[in-house]
């Protein structure tokens, strides 16, 4: 493969029946330089992929195959449940020179951090250093040079991007705790149902299901270098979307204009980051509603200059910027293609 040449490459998806796998397929089928070769699923072998992902009808005639039937390709996407990719990573690496793993298996660089947050020892700790954390807004150059890229946690992504301008401009006061309130949609829980996702129980909820200790906290600690941080997770009555609201303190003397400078820099440096801090209309702060299906991350902020309390807000589509969208963005970088290829969809309004 030659980088930067807009030639077609072959890709396959291991574990393509989940929501992230379906979103990956939607993006990759429409990608001008990609041919999707195979999609695996243990539970849907022989079925057309559009029978599981109905939006793909008339766009692909692919059928799910057994994982054992997977063949060599240029790039392999892994969209397996957490914990599975790490047990067979050597086999997958023998099939493709480049791997993008959407699960949590290779997000953390430190095996002890993994064990602390995931409650078990990592099965392939020797692979952790080979992966680059797959958020282009944090690791663009490393991803472009990498063969192995991890996925990102959707809640971690909303948190990390909300913190990014404050951390990069070094105006966050790290001596005080960072509290992150996160509202999430139901698709974040995955395609497998449980009692809590039963419609009668899930509809109309505003349900705090994790006051602190959510696994994605580890990615915020690792990527932002903020040690004293808590994520509080609340499920709300939407299907897609994450809204992260960061509460923290800025360093003494920091003004609203300093924040404007920091957020503007983040938007200028990153094609998928937008600043939403409007004075008119309904959409004055970031909202996931208008981001459904898009790869944008909308950032907003407010500062109480009297006490340095900053509120930083990030809205994303959890299946896009928080999963499949970032993964395709990483693919584009790894292949030397325009970063926005196949990711240009700007969302819908009204919705």
């Amino acid at each position, binding site marked *: 493969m030659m980088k930067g040449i807009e030639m077609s490459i072959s890709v396959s998806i291991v574990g393509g029946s989940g929501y992230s796998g379906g979103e990956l397929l939607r993006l990759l089928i429409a990608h001008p330089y990609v041919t999707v070769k195979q999609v695996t699923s243990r539970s849907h072998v022989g079925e057309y992929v559009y029978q599981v992902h109905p939006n793909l009808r008339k766009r692909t005639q692919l059928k799910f195959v057994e994982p054992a039937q997977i063949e060599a390709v240029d790039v392999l996407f892994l969209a397996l449940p957490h914990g599975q990719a790490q047990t067979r990573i050597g086999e997958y690496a023998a099939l493709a020179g480049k791997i993008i793993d959407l699960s949590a298996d290779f997000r953390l660089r430190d095996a002890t951090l993994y064990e602390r947050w995931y409650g078990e020892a990592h099965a392939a700790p020797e692979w952790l250093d080979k992966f680059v954390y797959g958020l282009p807004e944090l690791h663009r150059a490393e991803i472009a040079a990498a063969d192995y890229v991890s996925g990102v946690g959707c809640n971690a992504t909303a948190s990390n991007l909300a913190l990014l301008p404050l951390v990069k401009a070094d105006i966050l006061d790290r001596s005080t705790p960072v509290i992150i309130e996160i509202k999430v949609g139901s698709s974040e829980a995955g395609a497998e149902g449980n009692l809590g996702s039963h419609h009668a129980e899930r509809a109309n909820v505003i349900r705090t299901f994790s006051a602190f200790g959510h696994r994605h906290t580890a990615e915020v600690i690792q990527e932002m270098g903020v040690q004293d941080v808590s994520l509080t997770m609340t499920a709300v009555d939407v299907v897609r979307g994450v809204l992260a609201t960061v509460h923290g303190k800025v360093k003494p003397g920091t003004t609203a204009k300093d924040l404007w400078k920091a957020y*503007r820099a983040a938007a200028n440096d990153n094609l998928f980051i937008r*600043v939403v*801090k409007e*004075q008119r209309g*309904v959409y004055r702060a970031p909202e996931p509603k208008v981001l459904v299906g898009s790869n944008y991350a909308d950032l907003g902020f407010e500062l109480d200059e009297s006490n340095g309390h900053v509120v930083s807000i990030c809205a994303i589509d959890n299946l896009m910027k928080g999963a499949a969208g970032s993964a395709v963005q990483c693919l584009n970088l790894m292949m030397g293609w325009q970063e926005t290829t196949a990711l240009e969809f700007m969302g819908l309004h009204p919705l």
Partner: protein
Amino acid sequence: MTTVSCPECEAQVLLDADVELGEILVCPECGVDLEVTALNPAALELAPMVQEDWGE
């Protein structure tokens, strides 16, 4: 064209050559209303905006 810094967010606001004294502009970044309070050199000040309920 002249460029003037927004007094709210410090975005660079482009003024057309035929901009008039007292004209109200909208900052393209933070969305505040700006009044052209001087020409040669041009100056911008925050203009009062109607407060409205929203989002509740």
